């Protein structure tokens, strides 16, 4: 069923801006990103919003909806009462570029500070042997879509700009988990890899990581 949705969208840039009220049609099954796009196509041609996959897989369309960090593509219109005015604002933890788009380069800079994975020198292509149970532990960290909503939720940087210089951010945990738990071994080593075992070089890599951070 089509309905009219009342939105209050931030319009502006780093210098000034404010909330603008708009009314827009919304159809059954639509998400907030759909109605933002309809506003863009029909009312405000230069309304800035990031998006890519529209399936909750790329983490581009992060905004705040009624003050809560959300993916616009995964937030159902039907989750709001028809009488409600829904407020859409940019992520507060990062500087506004324009409208709903923020400067998230902070996250890329911090990611660059974590030493990247480097394979063991003696690992040859096709020789790696790992058990599914070990792989799954690290795969869990690799599901991160880098939407930066966890950063936006974290009050240490959300409310305190001065902390960004030294604070490593919540996504540090993901970076460490990703790099540090890779359970690579290979069959030239005489021992079979047992489930649940982390190989010594990984422990070394962990130590390198922590040293690079301290």
């Amino acid at each position, binding site marked *: 069923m089509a309905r009219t949705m009342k939105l209050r969208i931030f319009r502006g*840039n780093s210098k000034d801006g404010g909330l603008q009220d708009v009314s827009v049609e919304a*159809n*059954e*099954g*639509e*998400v907030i990103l*759909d109605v933002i796009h309809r506003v*863009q*196509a*029909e009312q405000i*041609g*230069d*309304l*800035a*919003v*990031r*998006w*890519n*996959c*529209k*399936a*909750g*897989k*790329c983490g*581009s369309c992060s905004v705040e909806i009624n003050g809560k960090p959300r993916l616009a593509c*995964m937030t159902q219109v039907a989750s709001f009462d028809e009488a409600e005015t829904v407020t859409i604002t940019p992520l507060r933890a990062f500087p506004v*570029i*324009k*409208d709903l*788009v923020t*400067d*998230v380069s902070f996250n*890329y800079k911090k990611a*660059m500070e974590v*030493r*990247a*994975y*480097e*394979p063991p020198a003696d*690992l*040859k*292509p*096709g020789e*790696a*042997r*790992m*058990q*599914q149970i070990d*792989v799954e532990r*690290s*795969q869990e960290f*690799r*599901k991160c*879509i*880098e939407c930066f909503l966890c950063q936006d939720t974290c009050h240490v940087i959300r409310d305190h700009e001065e902390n960004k210089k030294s604070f490593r951010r919540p996504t540090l945990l993901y970076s460490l988990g*990703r*790099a540090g738990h*890779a359970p690579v071994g290979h*069959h030239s080593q005489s021992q079979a*890899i047992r489930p649940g075992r982390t190989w010594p070089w990984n422990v070394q890599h962990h130590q390198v990581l922590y040293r690079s951070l301290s």
Partner: protein
Amino acid sequence: MSNQLERYKYDVVIIGAGGAGLRAAVEAREAGLSVAIVCKSLFGKAHTVMAEGGVAASMGNVNESDNWMVHFRDTMRGGKFLNNYRMAELHAKEAPERVWELEVWGALFDRTKEGKISQRNFGGHEYPRLAHVGDRTGLELIRTMQQRIVALQQKDGRDHGDAEKFIKVFAEVTITEILKENGKVSGAYGYRRENGEEILFEAPAVILATGGAGKTFKITSNSWEGTGDGHALALKAGGHLIDMEFFQFHPTGMVWPPSVRGLLVTESVRGDGGVLTNSEGKRFMFDYIPDVFKDKYADNEAEADRWYTDQANNRRPPELLPRDEVARAINSEIKAGRGTEHGGVYLDVSKRLPADVIKKKLPSMWHQFYELAGVDITKEAMEVGPTCHYVMGGAWVEPDTAAVIDVPGLFAAGECAGGMHGSNRLGGNSLSDLLVFGRRAGLGAVEYVKSNGANPVSEGSVAAAAAKIEAPFNNPGSENPYALHHELQETAHNLVGIIRTKTELEEAIAKIADLRARAKNIGVSGGRQFNPGFHLTFDLDNMLLIAEAAAKSALIREESRGGHTREDFPTMSSTWRQVNNITTWNGSSIAVEQKHLPDLTKELFDLFDIHELEKYMTSDELSQSRGGSN
């Protein structure tokens, strides 16, 4: 003209930061070149992220009978023998190395019991062949490549004191033009999306790795980025596109709710046992097995079901036919009135696998349907229908070096390059394609730069490129870019879609010409700062070229093959199999010429059973090749 022009000099500029672009970057940097990676989105958001099922490579981890020759045969069959055989050969031979290399770089694939990389079944692949990470293989691939780039940057930081000295990522930049001097590439010009400021890259080599063009169509699995930029840049630089009539309509996109229409439902659902049924409950794919595939696919449910546990003694279920066959079958069922409430068919995996296995093997599918459609796929069937997913056509390139023909210094890899997949791509062959040819494009650029030094950009070229970017702001016209895009998508979908006819294609060509004329009157509201209406104006220009190339090539090809089905010419023609459609842009319209497809070498010819080739080739070809020169 913007306030100041940002200027950079690199050995290679890579346009696109998906799998192909990043793989090319690694190759070029490791050979000692300086590399700019330019992408329209933030780094790490490229469409490769969306790839679900896996990467095809004949490692033989699950079935030892697999090897490059079997993979080559499957790829040629899938493409209905229109593939550039040399590309298909290189792809099949090199894919395993590229997958193992990813693993060395830190990718964590799912495992077999022996601890090797697990491989899953997919449409058109004779053996389990797709290395995978649940149903988020693309995410793992792009993160691994991202990490590899960061590793190279960190090394440069240690060795040279500046991590971005030799590889720098320019995120949220759109390239509007490939610059040339003296007939050779000299650089690339574009604007920053964030503020509209213009940016110039001077470089003797440019690699196009921009992906697809699905946004030309109304129902698509592609993100906003899939606007055929690399295709259009190649054309505008004097290159050509090959076989642009071939678009892949993936058989299973979501159909409900309308907001997610077209969103991909991975082929892994069928690979892992999902069956397709119509509104009458009939498993209809048994009715759609084409003659050329009759000996490889089960013609009854009992055999098809046995195949999941015993592949040696049973033929494959017809749900795993190549994508073009399944898409056409679904289309026919819906047209015949046997579709679901929302105009799709049912895809059900809930009766085949236990809930916990579905959630483990297909976690993002479960999440996608649960969150966006309110459907629990562990308990009920999905509604699915065809969605524009991939373009087989693309820049016409030299197979070994990925060099764009007729444009020295320009290279293309991945979806924006053509030839590799013929008339239809097999699932899983895209991720392997972009690794194999991303690397080869990087190598090609390295060799080119070594023998061709810098080619300075003239101020005249810069001024001309700048004037084009400024134009829509000075235009008093009243056309709305969003509305024109919508009309183009309707035209492409209705008239250049899954089933085509002469009259509809002629109508499409006229409408596209009309849209192009109207696009000259687009007036952009707002300023240069992150202005999506302004951005769309340039994307739209590219999509108009894609649509025109597709419609004109489709009109000329009077047969049905792979991702091109003509209602008025419903069968394959062995004469047309020998023909590539080559498109050229003269500045105002697209022209299409026919060129003879390169002949299979004797060595590759002999990999096939002669009786199979008889289904595709003319008797003249068969007798010639059998005698075979190389």
